[in-house]
């Protein structure tokens, strides 16, 4: 059996279409069987509501008198793109306010516009013969704009890896607040209700397909940026009319210590054409797997701690190394349900009809990492190989002499095998001399908790270690933890020689 999109639209028009949400579908298939479900159900609605950083809107303000070609543009002190001439701009969700920083950003401007609030536009220009005006400042509401078109380059991720943190300090990431020592797990995504997870072969979702976007009827533009369905991470580029959107499904947010983002409500109605659609939409939370990644590693390849399903994540806790770790969702399942339910209402009432893609999205694409022609500086490029170390059993006097002779402030302490066991600074030695007591040997005064770096670590990461720990030197160690060099704040000066700054 096969149903055509025309048959389904005819049922939608005469009000007889059977519409269910993607959450209801698995039990319907279990009850009626695949053929029964195909006969019974015409449309499955999906929904998701979560942080979608790659979002924004094109705005057209109309011309001023005298007219201006806006080159630099701010909305409530949030800079918007000025390269679209003359009175067009694109406001990106994550752009932060020049004054309020992460507490207010492009997402807040968009939400304020949707809420009917006044937004201050400021713009400047060089002035030309055709556009003589150089500055403008005016208060605007959404209704004053000719167009306000949301266009989000990367939305509706098919799934998203969960996050934890094995380091000993709290991390502030786009995956929220991650407690030390794997103290919690955060995740995002609607699982069973996710649009692409219900159409992983992208037979139904493609260019021109009608969607629910933040409470307004919208459309899929095509594949989203970084679309990578080969690994289960498909994305969509979507658009919709901001003027019809609702604050119920569009919310600005701040991930503390990371920045501004926009919570977007997005749903796609899927026509149940054949058994393949039935099988795809019968997907459950239990069937959708993601990795839990260690965000404690500040690189592109974060180690996988373990693999889990959305069902496990949503249960409230996940076992890691024999311990039950609490999970937090960053997206809202309740809101995702509301999106799918409201979209179901639209289709039942006939206010939204379905269509198949006018152009298909590649279901096998794999996003590549950045092509980097020049690698950034690594520790080995600037480290000081003439590092002076001291044995743990040496006298403090010897350490003082070494510090003076070597004109350094840090002495990595090594054992007989050259392996790093501690560090002492000029301050530690001065303190021991000023307060003569029981301490005679280096090992009595050394700090044993040493923050280190390695030759192939990126300098940017080493610098973050210096900043976060409020220290000025990092011993550079090899794989056997032997001291091979030292990186001090002074070595960072080499970066300003021009070699790495193009």
């Amino acid at each position, binding site marked *: 059996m096969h149903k055509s999109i025309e048959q389904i639209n005819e049922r939608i028009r005469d009000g007889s279409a059977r519409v269910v949400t993607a959450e209801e579908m698995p039990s319907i298939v279990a009850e009626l069987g695949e053929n029964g479900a195909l006969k019974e159900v015409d449309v499955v609605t999906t929904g998701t*509501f*979560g*942080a979608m950083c790659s979002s924004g809107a094109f705005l057209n303000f109309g011309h001023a008198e005298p007219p201006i070609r806006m080159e630099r543009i701010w909305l409530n002190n949030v800079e918007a793109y000025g390269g679209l001439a003359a009175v067009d701009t694109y406001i990106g969700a994550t752009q932060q306010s020049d004054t309020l920083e992460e507490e207010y950003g492009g997402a807040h401007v968009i939400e304020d516009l949707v809420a009917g609030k006044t937004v201050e536009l400021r713009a400047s220009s060089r002035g030309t013969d055709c556009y003589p005006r150089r500055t403008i400042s005016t208060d605007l509401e959404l209704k004053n704009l000719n167009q306000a078109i949301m266009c989000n380059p990367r939305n509706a991720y098919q799934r998203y890896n969960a996050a934890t943190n094995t380091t000993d300090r709290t991390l502030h990431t786009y995956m*929220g*607040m991650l*407690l030390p020592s794997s*103290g*919690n*797990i*955060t995740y995002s995504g609607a699982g069973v209700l996710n649009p692409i997870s219900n159409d992983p072969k992208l037979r139904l979702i493609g260019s021109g397909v009608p969607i629910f976007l933040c409470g307004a009827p919208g459309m899929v533009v095509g594949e989203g940026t970084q679309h990578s369905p080969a690994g289960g991470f498909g994305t969509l580029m979507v658009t919709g009319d901001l003027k019809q959107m609702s604050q119920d499904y569009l*919310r600005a*947010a*701040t*991930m*503390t*210590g990371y920045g501004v*983002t926009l*919570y977007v409500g997005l749903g796609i109605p899927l026509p149940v054409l054949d058994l393949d659609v039935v099988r795809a939409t019968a997907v459950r939370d239990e069937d959708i797997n993601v990795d839990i990644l260690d965000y404690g590693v500040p690189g592109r390849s974060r180690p996988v701690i373990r693999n889990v399903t959305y069902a496990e994540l949503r249960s*409230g806790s996940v076992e890691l190394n024999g311990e039950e*770790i*609490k*999970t*937090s*969702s*960053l*997206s*809202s*399942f*309740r*809101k995702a*349900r509301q999106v799918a339910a409201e979209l179901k209402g639209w289709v039942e009432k006939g206010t939204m009809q379905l269509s198949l893609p006018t152009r298909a999205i590649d279901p096998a694409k794999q996003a590549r990492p950045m092509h980097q022609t020049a690698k950034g500086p690594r520790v080995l490029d600037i480290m000081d190989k003439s590092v002076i170390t001291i044995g743990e059993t040496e006298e403090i006097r010897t350490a003082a002499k070494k510090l003076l002779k070597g004109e350094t402030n840090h002495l990595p302490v090594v054992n007989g095998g050259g392996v790093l066991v501690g560090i002492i600074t000029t301050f530690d030695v001065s303190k021991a001399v000023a307060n003569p007591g029981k301490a005679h040997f280096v090992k009595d005064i050394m700090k044993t908790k040493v923050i280190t770096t390695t030759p192939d670590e990126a300098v940017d990461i080493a610098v973050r270690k210096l900043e976060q720990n409020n220290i000025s030197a990092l011993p550079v160690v090899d794989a056997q933890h032997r001291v091979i060099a030292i990186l001090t704040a002074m070595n960072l000066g080499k970066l300003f020689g021009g070699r790495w700054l193009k």
Partner: protein
Amino acid sequence: MKLLVTFSRGKGRGPIIAQVVRDTGVLINVERAVIDSSEGEALIEVPDDQCKLVRDSMTSFGAQVRILEHGINLKESECVDCGACISVCPREVFSFDPEWKLAVDEERCILCGKCIEACPHRALTLPL
């Protein structure tokens, strides 16, 4: 009942909490405490019927005592029921109800404030 006790730690000040426990015999549960060289703040829990006794004793030692009637404050209009607060709370104040709406067990809250910065929607605030 939860009490917020603040005290200064000048010269000659004794261990206030220990003294109150000894004098009153009430077993005080210290939920949270920040004490440095000059001042201290402790959130303690005591049985309701012994609240006055503890409070008077604390006050006699020069501490300021405030009864905390409310836990963390949730602004429903800002909350989207994501649940970012759930896993960062040390006291399991937050949970989902069967409809995936955020439920707050105010009684359990010790006002540590962790959830405030974890909330992406700035929906959580300390009570005044």
